[in-house]
C-alpha cells in the first residue's frame, strides 16, 4: 500500500463518488492533509497479518435473528420532510 499516491485527481474522484463538492482551495488542502494521513496508515504494512482473521466486531455474536412476525409501526413517515406530495416522498429526477 505504500505506493498509493494521494493527489488532487484521486481526491476529486473520491469526493465525487461520495457526493461532496470541493472548491479548488479545498481540493489542495484536502489532498495535502489526506496525503499525510494515508502515508501514516501505511505503517500497518509492518504488521504481519498472514493467516489472521479480520475482526468485524470486538465480540462476535452469531445467529441473532428475528421471527417472521409482522407488526405495524404507528407513525408519520413524512413527518420529517418538506419533499412530499400525495403521501409520496418527492425525489429529484434521475437524469
Amino acid at each position, binding site marked *: 500500500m505504500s505506493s498509493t499516491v494521494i493527489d488532487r485527481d*484521486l481526491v476529486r474522484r473520491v469526493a465525487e463518488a461520495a457526493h461532496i463538492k470541493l472548491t479548488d482551495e479545498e481540493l489542495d488542502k484536502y489532498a495535502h492533509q489526506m496525503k499525510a494521513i494515508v502515508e501514516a496508515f501505511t*505503517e500497518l504494512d509492518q504488521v504481519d497479518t498472514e493467516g489472521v*482473521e479480520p*475482526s468485524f466486531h470486538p465480540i462476535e455474536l452469531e445467529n441473532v435473528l428475528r421471527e417472521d412476525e409482522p407488526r405495524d409501526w404507528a407513525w408519520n413517515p413524512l413527518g420529517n420532510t418538506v419533499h412530499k406530495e400525495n403521501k409520496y416522498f418527492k425525489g429529484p429526477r434521475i437524469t
Partner: protein
Amino acid sequence: MTTIEKAHLINEKYKAFNFIAEALEGGEGLLSGVAVSVKDNVCVNGMQSTAGSKILEGYIPPFDATVVAKCRAEGAGILGKTTQDEFGFGTFNVNTGYGVPLNPHDPERSTGGSSGGAAVVTAVADFPHLAIAESTGGSISCPASFCGVVGITPTYGRTSRWGLIDYANSLDKIGCMGKTVREAALLLTVISGPDKYDSTVLHEPTQDYTSYADGCAEGLKIGVPEEYFGEGVDTGVTEKVWTGIKTLESEGATVTEVSMPFTKHSLSSYYIIAMAEASTNLAKLCGLRYGLHMPLEGNFDEYFSEVRTLGFGEEAKRRIILGTFTRMAGYRDAYYLKALKVRTKVIEDFKRAFKHVDVLAAPTMPVVAPKFSEIAELEPIQHYMMDILTVAPNLAGVPMISVPCGEHLGMPVGLHLMTDHLEEGKLVKAASAVEGAR
C-alpha cells in the same frame, strides 16, 4: 430556579446544549428526581437530535433510543441534548455545527470530545444530574478527563445502540458520566442489558454496578502497559497518573508492568475502520427524508451533492472522503481489510494482558485540555494522534473508565482504567478506590 432554567444558564456560559427540554418530566424508580442529559447523537422521541451536524438540523426522531427509554422507565427526566463534535468526529469538540463548548475549569480550553457537552453539564450541574454519552474511539474518556468527571465506556454491546445516530457501528458504545464513580455506575446499571432492536447487543442481563463501588482495591491485579507512557505523554500527566496507581496499591492492589506491543498500530487501524463505516452511515443524509432540505433542483447526483456539501462540516467531509477511499476497489484490501486484521492483533493484546491482570491503568489523555489557540495550530493528523491512548481499548471493545486523579497546570488529569469484556464491576471497584482516597 428550576432545573431547566439552570440548564439554560449553563448553556449561556459554556454552550453545553444543542437542545434543552421545555419541562423536566420524571417518575418513580432508580433515577427518580434525576435529570439525565443525552448526547445529541442519541435519539429522544420528539426532541431535535442532530448529532451535532447541520445536515440533521430539524430531525425529530420518532422513537426513543433504548437507553433513553430505560432512563424514563426508572423515573428520570430528560433534560436536553448535549453538544458534541459533528457525528463524534473530533477529540476537542471544535468540529461542531452548533458552537463549541467551553471547559468549566478554563473557558479558553477545550472540553475534549466528542461528548464535550455531557462532560460540561456533569461537571457544573448543582442539581441531581447524570449524562448519557457515547464513545467510538475515546469520546467519553477524553472529555471526562479534560473536565474532571467520571466517564464509563462499557463493553461493546453492553448497552443497546438502538437510537444511536451511528458513527462507526462496530465501535460505537453508549456510556455514561457522573460526578462520582457511584453515580456513573448507577446510570450504567440502568442503561445496560439486552434489547431486541439491536442485533449486536450482548445477551447478559445488567447488574447493580453501584454495589462494586466499595472504595476497596484489595486483591486486584493492576497492569501498567509501558506503551501507554511513551513519547508525547506529558510528564506532569504521567506523574498524576502514577499517583493514582500508587493509591490503588495502597488500597490493596498489586501492580505489575505489562506489554501491549500492538498499541502503536491501533491508531491507523481505528481510523481506517471508523472512517470506512462512517462514510457509509452518512450516505443516507441527502436532503430527502429528514434533516436539512433544499429546493429540489437538478438531477439526484446534483441535488444530493448540493445538500451534502452545504450540510457537512469540514471534518465530516474529510472523514467521508477518507472513508470512501479506504474501501474503494483496489485499496480495500490494503486499508479496510488490513485494518480489520490488525484489530484482531490489538484484541489479542488485551486478551493476553487480562490473563495476568484484572485492570489496566494508563493516562486517559497524553495532555491536559489544550487551549483553543493551540488546537487551531494542529493539522488533522495531529488531532488524530491525540487519541493514541484511547483507541486501542475502543477497538477491542473492552470497558474503560476515566476517573480524576489530580491536576496539572490547574487542569484535571484522568486515570484510565480498563478491564476485560463485561468486567465493568471490577472497573467500578478500582475507580472507586482511586476516588475514595483522593
